[in-house]
């Protein structure tokens, strides 16, 4: 009987890696968003936070699109 252990292992490894990266990026993005609103409320400027937050969220979307691309076109 030929059980696809390697495929099962790969699925586990790939999804775990993806989720760790997405969870960290999205968490940082949320943190950035929260700090930005706090700074704005206190009247300060937070352009660096805005850039960081944007990069984190865009990276999350890019990972999702890449996954879709791999499935559909490869």
């Amino acid at each position, binding site marked *: 009987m030929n059980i696809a252990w390697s495929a099962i292992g790969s*699925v*586990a490894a790939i*999804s775990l890696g993806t989720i*760790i990266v997405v*969870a960290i990026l999205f968490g940082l993005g*949320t*943190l950035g968003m929260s700090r930005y609103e706090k700074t704005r409320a206190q009247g300060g400027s937070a352009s660096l936070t805005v850039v960081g937050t944007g990069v984190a969220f865009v990276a999350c979307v890019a990972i*999702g699109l890449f996954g879709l691309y791999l499935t*559909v076109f490869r």
Partner: protein
Amino acid sequence: MHIPLIVVAVIVTALIFDFTCGFHEASDAVATSVATGALRPRVAVGIAAVGNLVGAFLSIKIALTISNGIVDDTKITPAVVFAGLVGAIMWNLLTWVVGLPSSSTHALYGGLIGATLVAVGSGGVHFAKVTSSFLIPALAAPVIAGLVAVIGTRISYRVARGSDQRVTTRTYRAGQTVSASLMAMAHGTNDGQKTMGVITLALVSGNLLPHNANPPVWVIVSAGIVIGAGTFFGGWRIIRTVGKRLTDIMSPQGFIAETTSAAVVLASAHLGLALSTTHVCGGAVVGTGLGRKGAEVRWGVAGRILLTWVLTLPAAGLMAGIAVMASDGGAVGTVGVAVVGIVVAAVLWVLARRHPVHAGNVNDVPTMERAATPETASA
């Protein structure tokens, strides 16, 4: 052109199965978004319906290998496919009435195996293949998704712990709308195609298409539209169970559950491993409940769901086996099976109407079962 009755029966039942598949597995994509209030119920199933429709057009890879080698394709007659579909539809309706998620894929293959066993004998079923490509992955799917979701949930709460509660809820709800759409599309690429495969097989066996033909355009279009319509119909009973009864879900958990499910389903589809979206999603929801401190997983509900998953293959097989005995006997048998099927479906529908669950009350669970969280209490 003469089209045999049995081929027409297969096409019609395949589309009905496709519809049940849509509402049965709508919960895979929308349950957590509905539960956290990220999307209004009607909007959620609308997005999921479009995702399923789009997904069905994206690829026909799975449609080309309908039975995945678990039964001997050369020995399958339209009567076997018809009986298999009837068994699968009955199981889908039964589990819908009691509000339990179950894999439509396993129901379909259970039906095909049962009908083949009765009509052809054990020589028609490749048992080693059943174990290696269904039973082992079915065990692995919820475990992988569960572990990944536990770790993802822990990380999310750790990284975002310093942020404002309101901002956290808002961003993760927004994230959920994206991850839910991705999950719906992944479901459409997986499950919409099974119907295309079944209809194509019936057309080939009725000599209306050459062997190894691709699904005709009208088959792809109708399968995509029907699974989308089924998804839009809702399947609210199952959405309530997965979103509200299994554990208490807050928006970061919902985001992680959906992202995990999409990652596992897309990765496995890419590597050619046939995991069931239902098993993946169920595992991810339980995992995310284990990952957040203070969330409680209701193991009684989880146990009932697990029992449903174990029973899916044999139960659909048994019903299909009974159906094939009648439908193998020609047109009268086929009509008889169809009539019995319609009557059973009508009875189940009436039973469901006694305790209706719809978009308006999907999140209302008796307080005994629901631990109030700040987020759900305000929603």
